[in-house]
């Protein structure tokens, strides 16, 4: 195996790596997939994968803080970033190094994490899958902000359809509305499955809002109608009888990836748990999508990886890519150096090299940037590691006037799209507002904090139980997920001073917000206040440095924001080698046989959760690679 040369070597078994591996092997190409995480997590045997997943579940139950990475192994030899380590940056000269992996140089701490293991961060993602809006691709042209993408929404549309098939999106096309959502946005199209039912809480909230007819809020003298939309998401519901497709295939003759239409007998079938095709065919309402879906009704990348063709795929686990090797001229990639280990915590490793015709990095935005910087390649533009972005999630919370029963169902089933686009984008960030189904858990650690507060007030017995019932059944949490714009100073760097136990670099993150985002916090709170007033919600929102270290002051007021886990933009795609790391095929400008995949390619973020767009981009890259291979 040491000397075997593959058609393609892929780094990372997350959603981008898995889509790539599946698409290439189904087209008959030989693939080596390198994965840093433990072998047990990548097994495709039913019993093995079931037992392994149950250890994740047990770890999750037992975790004191049930943060996104809590169910999953954190290895010394391949550590993961963890939100549990986020703290205020001690000083401009003293970065935060809590957790022994991510080095936070500030001035603000970066608020998101990911997981380095089989299936990647889709193991703990929420699964929300809106598409980007057409204007999101032309931020510079339309609003004079950020950059344009090298292509438009329409160019990505068919890849969006592939991504929605692959992930298994449940949703209702007809219900989608809001700025930018025209008839042609989805076109004559259905999602693979029917929409996930909107929560009882959504219904109570919407009813309260609509009591006075149309809900209108004012912002900067302009009126906006508040609309509610069922959220498309990657979790299983009832297959949609009208859905037209069932598969994706490489059309060798036309050199294109094609959606395969369903027929009377061959129809779309949703993917169940990796250990049993009969488990997880519907979301069962575990209300734990983040960090783990116990029945795998929520999509994760292992479902895609499982569809890869075994005879063309070798998976090498416990293999951490450390450097990309290039020839003497620095042009052609000649191999990927990786370090293998036995247990993950023993700090004993061997260094090997993987060889292929084409190389693909899909190790996450942060890891991709880190590997490129460590290799000193692909950076003639000086853009590698720069333009790191996330959604800055401003939260507001209050008590509804009647019981709405949060803490049930998927994390969010409804969103307010009203501020996803508009003329205001030339002045401040746009946002999407998901209605959160899980009470105040995120900002203030409910329901545990409600219990300790009540006990602090000497409540006991029936009084205590009644109080908790009264409060916990009425909690509402609203998100304002504000678009961060690309800033070259928000970036990943490396430094000899910071290395992990097996000698790989620890990423250093430099991070801040600016006026464009801060102004959107101000606007979002104005909107939130009007919504709360209209729906008779008792506001309990309160921001402080103590509540959360991502705290900014703007025009005399303080705001907290939280990371959305949408880590984007560290090796952006563009029109020319001088302004970007990859071309529209997601091939590095500097190296003909090196492709980068994942959220790092996205030039801007828009207001949609990036996984769907990134998956669409990955199908586009896979198509380019298949063309590339067939040329030879």
């Amino acid at each position, binding site marked *: 195996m040491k000397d075997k040369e593959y058609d393609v070597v892929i780094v990372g078994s997350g959603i981008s790596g898995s889509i790539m591996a599946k698409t290439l092997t189904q087209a008959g190409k030989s693939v080596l997939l390198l994965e840093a995480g433990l072998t047990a997590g990548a097994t495709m*045997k*039913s019993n093995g994968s*079931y*037992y392994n997943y149950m250890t994740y579940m047990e770890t999750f139950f037992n975790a004191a803080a049930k943060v996104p990475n809590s169910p999953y192994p954190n290895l010394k030899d391949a550590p993961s970033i963890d939100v549990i380590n986020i703290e205020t940056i001690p000083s401009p000269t003293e970065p935060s190094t809590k957790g022994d992996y991510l080095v936070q140089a500030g001035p603000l701490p970066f608020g998101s994490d990911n997981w380095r293991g089989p299936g990647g961060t889709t193991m703990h993602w929420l699964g929300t899958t809106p598409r980007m809006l057409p204007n999101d691709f032309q931020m510079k042209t339309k609003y004079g902000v950020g950059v344009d993408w090298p292509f438009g929404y329409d160019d990505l549309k068919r890849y969006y359809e592939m991504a929605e098939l692959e992930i298994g999106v449940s949703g209702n096309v007809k219900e989608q509305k809001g700025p930018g959502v025209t008839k042609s946005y989805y076109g004559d199209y259905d999602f693979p499955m029917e929409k996930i039912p909107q929560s009882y809480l959504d219904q109570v909230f919407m009813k309260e809002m609509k009591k006075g007819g149309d809900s209108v809020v004012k912002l900067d003298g302009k009126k906006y109608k508040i609309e509610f939309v069922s959220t498309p998401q990657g979790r299983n519901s009832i297959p949609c009888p009208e859905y037209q497709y069932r598969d994706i295939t490489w059309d060798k003759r036309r050199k294109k990836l094609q959606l395969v239409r369903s027929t009377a007998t061959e129809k779309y079938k949703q993917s169940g748990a990796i250990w049993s095709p009969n*488990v997880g065919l519907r979301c069962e309402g575990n209300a734990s999508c983040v960090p783990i879906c116990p029945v795998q009704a929520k999509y994760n990348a292992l479902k895609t990886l499982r569809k890869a063709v075994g005879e063309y795929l070798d998976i090498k686990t416990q293999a951490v890519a450390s450097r990309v090797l290039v020839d003497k001229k620095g042009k052609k990639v000649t191999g990927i150096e990786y370090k293998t280990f036995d247990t993950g915590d023993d700090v004993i490793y061997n260094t090997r090299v993987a060889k292929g015709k084409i190389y693909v990095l899909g190790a996450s935005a942060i890891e991709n940037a880190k590997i490129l910087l460590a290799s000193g390649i692909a950076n003639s533009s000086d853009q590698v590691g720069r333009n790191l972005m996330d959604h800055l999630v401003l939260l507001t919370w209050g008590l509804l006037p009647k019981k709405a029963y949060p803490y049930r169902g998927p994390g969010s089933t409804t969103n307010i799209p009203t501020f996803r686009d508009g003329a205001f984008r030339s002045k401040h960030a746009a946002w999407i507002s998901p209605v959160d189904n899980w009470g105040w858990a995120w900002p203030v650690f409910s329901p545990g904090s409600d219990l300790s507060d009540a006990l602090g007030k000497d409540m006991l017995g029936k009084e205590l139980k009644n109080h908790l019932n009264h409060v916990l059944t009425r909690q509402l949490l609203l998100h304002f997920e504000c678009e961060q714009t690309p800033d070259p100073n928000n970036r990943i760097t490396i430094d000899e001073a910071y290395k992990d136990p097996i000698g790989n670099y620890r990423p250093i993150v430099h991070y801040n917000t600016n006026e464009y985002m801060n102004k959107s916090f101000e606007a979002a709170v104005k909107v939130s206040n009007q919504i709360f007033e209209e729906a008779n919600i008792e506001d309990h929102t309160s921001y402080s440095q103590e509540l959360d270290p991502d705290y900014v002051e703007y025009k005399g007021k303080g705001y907290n924001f939280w990371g959305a886990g949408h880590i984007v933009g560290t090796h952006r795609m563009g029109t020319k080698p001088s302004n970007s790391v990859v071309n529209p095929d997601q091939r590095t400008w500097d190296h003909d046989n090196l492709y980068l995949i994942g959220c790092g390619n996205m030039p801007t973020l828009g207001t949609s959760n990036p996984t769907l767009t990134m998956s669409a981009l990955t199908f586009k890259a896979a198509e380019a690679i298949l063309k590339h291979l067939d040329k030879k």
Partner: protein
Amino acid sequence: MSDSYNNTNPRRQKLNSRLKHQEQQAVTAKAGLLRASGAIKKKKKPTLKKLKANLQTAMKLEHSTIPPYLCALYSIKEGKNLMATEIIKSVVIEEMLHMVMVANLINAIGGKPVVGEVKGEPFIPSYPTPLPGNVDPSLIVNLTSMTKKQIRVFCKIEHPGDEEREERAKLRSIKDGETEYASIGDFYAAILDDMEALEEDAHKKGKTIFTGKTPQVTPEHYYGAGGSIIPVHNIDDARAVIDEIVDQGEGSFGSIFAEPYKEGKEEYLWFGADVEEYAHYFRFKEVQFGRFYKPTDSAHRDSPNRGRPTGEEIDIDWEEVYMMNDNPKMKDYPEGSEIRKKMYDFNKTYSNLLDNLNKGCNGKPEVLREGIMIMFDMKYKALELMKIPGNNGLAVGPSFEYIK
């Protein structure tokens, strides 16, 4: 049978395509074989009314296995015996699927399926009980925890017919003057036989017995089982339903147990990593012996592995089980007591579930969505009863009594 299911399971696909090709032949041959063996008594000409009654009995039969299987399932301590839990769970889900598919059969021929108690006619047997429909009356079924003994009873419940038992049944049936079946498979074979005969008669007159107008339950309403639900509109669908039920129960090869073992005969090899669905009988055997079947294992009793699983070990700890009182009843605890209240809550929920199924099988399949929620709720109530100490130092246990 959904195509996609076939796609995910190559071995099963093979099995089914074989069935499809030889469908007519195989079923007739099986019925003929059984008739020749005397398991099915040569009866008077079947009537549609009697067929409907037999199908109703079949529903009761499918249902009667559910409470004992659930007791075993819920008695397993949290997080213990993971694989046994998965195995028993998969069986129970399929039993419920069978019940609903029999309802589809009844509706298809213009009958009215009854789930739960209607007009005082009992539906839930009072445990301990023999299986409804005179299926092996020597077998008494208890509600109790997952014990080795109880798993052996489960194997018997799902046992494929064999010559010896059929012979016994035949002798007894002559004695009793009442039809008796050696196994569940035989019972269904008799039903299919009647159905074929009646449809043939109707066909000769240019008619059909499949005249039902009540909406069928379709895969959209019921999911999560090995194999998906089959709506019934004609005799082919009816055959497919019965094949599926018998297939999942004891395997579609009950007859091989009646044949002497032949070395290397492929039909006995039913197992392997790519076969995701074994018949219930074999799944229980795996629990009983704490091993999975492996591809070279034979299903035949006289094979070198004696029909037993010899593959990868399954970690089964018979101690990691809550021990409940056998066949509990509400009246075992004083009225007004907290325990009695908990038992009542459970039974009320179980009864609601049956009522929901009844509605779902009588023209309102969409309500089955709520049935899923009731089913989960019932489970958590049963799990409480598995932990609450009751009489004799044992857990109270769920009693499965119908409450209007």
